[in-house]
């Protein structure tokens, strides 16, 4: 997702108004994406507020007519990864976030707890979790998700496939950490991957 499609030209009052309207409309989606990424509602909302301020500051770089949701998701994603590198997020799970129980589709053996699904999601490596959220929950196409994550379409497909397989396995076996913060293996893996990114190896090379 490029943000450089338009030169940094000042906006008219009408354009600013349109920008703010569009930005306001995507806030619920930013909150949902952030909640899926980092788990805790309060931390997720802090991330969204940070994103809104960054987006507002960079509004001259937004190209009218393009997707505000995709553009702001890029900002949120980058802010999240930056904060992850600073160890601000630990993939924490809020026990109160999902008390409801899903009714299993016909032919399935038992209900799936949303809380189990959310915990399982938070154990995935960050780049697979975001790919799954973008495509499976956010409704983005593989192509759009690839642009947001700055990687190839095939990479996104691979990440989604691996995330799906991991979640299916975890939910089928019931092998889900009670709280993701206790899953040191998962978090160590995430942090190691982020270290690779910080070292310039690039997260997009990870399938």
């Amino acid at each position, binding site marked *: 997702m490029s943000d450089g499609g338009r030169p940094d030209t000042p906006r008219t009052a009408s354009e600013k108004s349109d920008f703010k309207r569009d930005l306001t409309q995507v806030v619920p989606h930013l909150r949902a994406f952030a909640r899926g990424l980092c788990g805790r509602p309060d931390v997720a909302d802090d991330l969204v507020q940070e994103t809104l301020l960054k987006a507002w500051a960079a509004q001259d770089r937004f190209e009218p007519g393009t997707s505000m949701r995709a553009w702001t998701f890029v900002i949120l994603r980058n802010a999240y990864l930056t904060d992850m590198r600073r160890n601000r997020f630990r993939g924490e799970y809020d026990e109160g976030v999902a008390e409801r129980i899903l009714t299993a589709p016909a032919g399935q053996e038992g209900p799936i707890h949303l809380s189990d699904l959310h915990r399982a999601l938070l154990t995935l490596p960050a780049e697979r979790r975001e790919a799954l959220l973008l495509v499976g929950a956010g409704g983005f196409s593989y192509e759009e998700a690839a642009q947001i994550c700055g990687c190839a379409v095939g990479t996104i497909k691979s990440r989604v496939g691996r995330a799906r*397989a991991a979640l299916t396995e975890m*939910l089928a076996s019931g092998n889900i950490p009670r709280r993701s913060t206790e899953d040191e293996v998962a978090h160590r893996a995430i942090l190691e991957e982020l270290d690779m990114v910080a070292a310039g190896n690039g997260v997009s090379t990870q399938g």
Partner: protein
Amino acid sequence: MSFTDMAHNQPPDGSNAGGRNGARERPPEWADGLKQLYDSVVEEALPDSFKDLLDQLDAIPPARGQGGSRTSADGPDTSQ
């Protein structure tokens, strides 16, 4: 794009990443749950803190709206 679509997509690397036997032929049973988690947040009432922030944006000039020391350090951070 939906998980119904995804369920029919072969992983591009030719691996078995799509799941175990039968997993590609139908959406995983948790697929609706993932969307439900997302939609439940989308449908939440917006907290007042967001309304307050949005109200304050007009007073913040573009490119100076990030506040704090991170502004100059990080830039808009819209790049990859």
